[in-house]
């Protein structure tokens, strides 16, 4: 489908998803602000989701839906399983993000700061 440009597409899909994962992890590891950490986590999630869909893609495949126009021709279809999994993953990611944000709000109200290096009353 992409001919000689196969590598470019591979690079841009895989590369951007791995880049998103790494950028997100960087944010989680380095940024001190709790919000930034949660943003980082959601960026990582985006990267992983993209990876799922990218891996399920098949060159020349169509969306796995047997609409009336294609039901008889039985065309090549992309792998539906990663898509189903990623649906679940997105929703779960949202749920976790919501809980994380609520914790951020509570931590901010409690400590009046949102910097993770200042919130360490529990240690050792």
């Amino acid at each position, binding site marked *: *489908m*992409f001919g000689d440009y*196969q590598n470019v*597409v*591979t690079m841009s*899909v*895989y590369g951007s998803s*791995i*880049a998103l*994962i*790494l950028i997100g*992890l*960087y944010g989680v*590891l*380095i940024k001190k602000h709790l919000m930034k950490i949660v943003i980082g986590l959601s960026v990582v999630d985006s990267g992983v989701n993209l*990876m799922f869909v*990218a*891996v*399920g*893609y*098949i*060159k020349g*495949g169509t*969306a*796995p*839906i*047997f*609409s*009336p126009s294609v*039901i008889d021709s039985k065309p*090549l*279809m992309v*792998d*539906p*399983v990663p*898509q*189903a999994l990623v*649906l*679940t993953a*997105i*929703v*779960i990611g*949202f*749920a*976790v993000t*919501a*809980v994380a*944000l*609520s*914790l951020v*709000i*509570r931590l*901010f*109200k409690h400590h*009046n700061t949102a910097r993770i290096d200042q919130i360490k009353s529990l240690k050792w």
Partner: protein
Amino acid sequence: MKKYLAIFLLLIVGFYLIQAFNLVPFGANRVGNIDDESTVGAYYLKNTVPKTSVANVVTAIVVNYRGFDTLGEVTVLFLATTGLGSILFRKRKHGEEEERVLKESSQLVKIGSRLLFPFIALLGIYVFIHGHLTPGGGFQGGAIIATGFLLMLVAYKNYKLGHGALTWIESLAGITFAGIGIWGLITGGTFLENNAFPGLGNVNDLISGGVIPIIYIAVGFKVAAELTGVLDILLSIKPNKN
């Protein structure tokens, strides 16, 4: 210092990720010959239409083949709402009215939202009713409906969400999902088995696929209710007054 260490570590992780995914060429056919059924993907592509009469294979997987996952996922949302409620709970002073601390929106926004809301809701409902035929389904439809509610919540300072109604919808949808599952057990089949109706109908009809559309509608309502609940809880927090 810590920054460079992190970058260094992440580059190594990235290297190994690339190495691992290098063996998974983009766009290659990993499903295999569909008639072999050597992978689950192939099996689903081959058997979904004849065995479940559902046109959208992803829907069939999400609701039927891996319906158990979806039940768990709906539960995760439900628990997130519950957890949010407990994490952000605060005792209301006696007689204190529940209110969202938002600026009053302009009249234009208010009217626009009110006009838009039914259409958004309708779109959402359409999306999850046709989940087994076209792209979309319970999650997408539910999320769309939740956006509609979001619009209303933002536009109207004291938009009253019927909490009782929300709970009812949430619970009934959940009970429907789990109940259909248990119905399968009661009738001698397996949990979530698609045997509530005698026939599965014709592919691409609105009424087809046995319980799959019903479950997806339940999921839609549930997701909509949960997401709205999350938004409502988050919007009712009193911001700091410092």
